[in-house]
């Protein structure tokens, strides 16, 4: 469904992604793990067309994403929840959702379905997005991405800085979307949280896609984590937030 082949991206002269490849089916949750600066966020931006690929192919079903201008990519059915949420913080909750709906001409029915997932937002519709709590902001960012009724969802560190209850809400949403057939790429620092929802873990190192393993393998053998994510992660510390 979502396919990345031989992707090379640069910031100026610095190569950030090297021959990156991944493949994702509908209803699959792929968790991307790697060190800071490994290229995780850049990969998501490249899929969205926000960082232009110098070479390589990006396809969603039959649509060739790499040929499209950035604003046409989400219209193919990709919802993006950027790192740090990037809400339109001076607009109201309702306006933020409206922007999500407008991307693919969705209307009240879609909004209703999204609000069932995040009922808290319903009481906050007229409030400025910047005044929400961290958890509510993340829900809004996720809800805004879901307003596109995406086939594929890109989540960049959605649990960063959240309380445990809010993390549970976000992860439950990912599970629910998985059941509805949405393909999800999850960039996550909380390894344990990631392991509970992911079908597959893909390691990324220096902009290259490396091994891809099942979550069970990782639980039994944390050496991979040690190698790709960093020396600070030991088995007993899995799930403790790293910064």
């Amino acid at each position, binding site marked *: 469904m979502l396919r990345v082949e031989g992707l090379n991206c640069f910031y100026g002269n610095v190569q950030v992604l090297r021959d990156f490849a991944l493949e994702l089916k509908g209803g699959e949750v792929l968790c991307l793990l790697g060190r800071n600066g490994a290229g995780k966020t850049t990969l998501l931006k490249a899929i969205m067309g926000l960082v232009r690929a110098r070479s390589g192919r990006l396809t969603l079903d039959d649509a060739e994403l790499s040929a499209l201008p950035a*604003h046409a*990519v*989400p219209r193919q059915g990709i919802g993006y929840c950027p790192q740090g949420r*990037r809400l*339109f913080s001076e607009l109201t909750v309702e306006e933020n959702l*409206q*922007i999500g709906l407008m991307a693919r001409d969705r209307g009240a029915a879609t909004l209703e379905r999204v609000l069932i997932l995040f009922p808290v937002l319903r009481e906050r519709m007229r409030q400025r997005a910047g005044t929400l709590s961290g958890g509510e902001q993340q829900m809004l960012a996720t809800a*805004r991405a879901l307003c596109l009724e995406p086939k594929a969802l890109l989540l960049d560190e959605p649990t960063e800085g959240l309380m445990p209850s809010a993390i549970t809400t976000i992860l439950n949403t990912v599970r629910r979307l998985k059941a509805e057939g949405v393909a999800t790429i999850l960039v996550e620092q909380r390894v344990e949280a990631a392991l509970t929802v992911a079908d597959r873990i893909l390691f990324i190192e220096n902009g290259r896609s490396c091994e891809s393993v099942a979550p069970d393998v990782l639980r039994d053998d944390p050496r991979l984590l040690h190698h790709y994510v960093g020396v600070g992660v030991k088995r007993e510390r899995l799930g403790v937030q790293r910064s």
Partner: protein
Amino acid sequence: MSLGPHLLLALMEGTVAAFVLALTALGLTLVFGVMRIVNVAHGEFFMLGAVFAWAFAHLVGNPALGFLVAVIASPIVVGGAALVIDRAILRRFNYQPEATIVATIGLLYIIQQLVLIFYGPDARSVEAPINFRVQLPWFGYSGYKLVVAGIAALLLLATWYGIAKTKLGLVMRATQFDSETAQAFGIPVDRVYAAVFALGAMLAAIAGVLIVPIKQAYYLMGLDPLLLSFIVVIIGGLGSLRGAIIAAFVIGISDGVISVFFSPNLSKILATLLVALVLIFRPEGLFGGKAR
């Protein structure tokens, strides 16, 4: 004339000037707010509006009909020119703040010289579309100036409504706050930029059309509104629409009053002093948000 009526006249003159200034400054602050571009050629759009108003009025002949054609056609022509400028120049510089300042300085001279070549160095007047005087007990007042204030007020309201309440306005505000995320939600940012640049130019052009029966169309007439617009936009806060409008009234009305009772130079001195004070004590402007 005693002090009371004198003050009233000064206030009325100041208010009309403030409405026209508010339109011009709104265009400047809109372009800066959404595109982060300081458009030094903004006053030339004002001048072009006035010059095309003269041309259309001249073509049509009948003052009322000519004005009606001018007030619609002139902003459209200027908006079209702004679209071409956006495509041909600003987009090629990728809307970088420094490059676009230099580019628009060049544009200011190019537009001025083109007008000088094709329109000439003369100041030409356009007859006001209506010719009645409002007779107050102490003095008569030009009815056309009241019409100017009325049209400007309507346009300010319409612009506010368009930005705050319509989908297009929402798209503009989203682009203003975070253009990258706007793109990630299907907003064609470069088309929004083109539209905003054209809209900003059209607001200045309409102000130019409205002013031409009061002043005259002249190829250097864009400099004064440019300076005043910058004063207003800096005091109000770069990019703040509300700030620009409030500051336009403060500057416009005080300019009217001080010019009548003291001298126009003093009012410019005070306005510039106010800009300096704002820049020292509140650099983001009285109504500007913190820099993003």
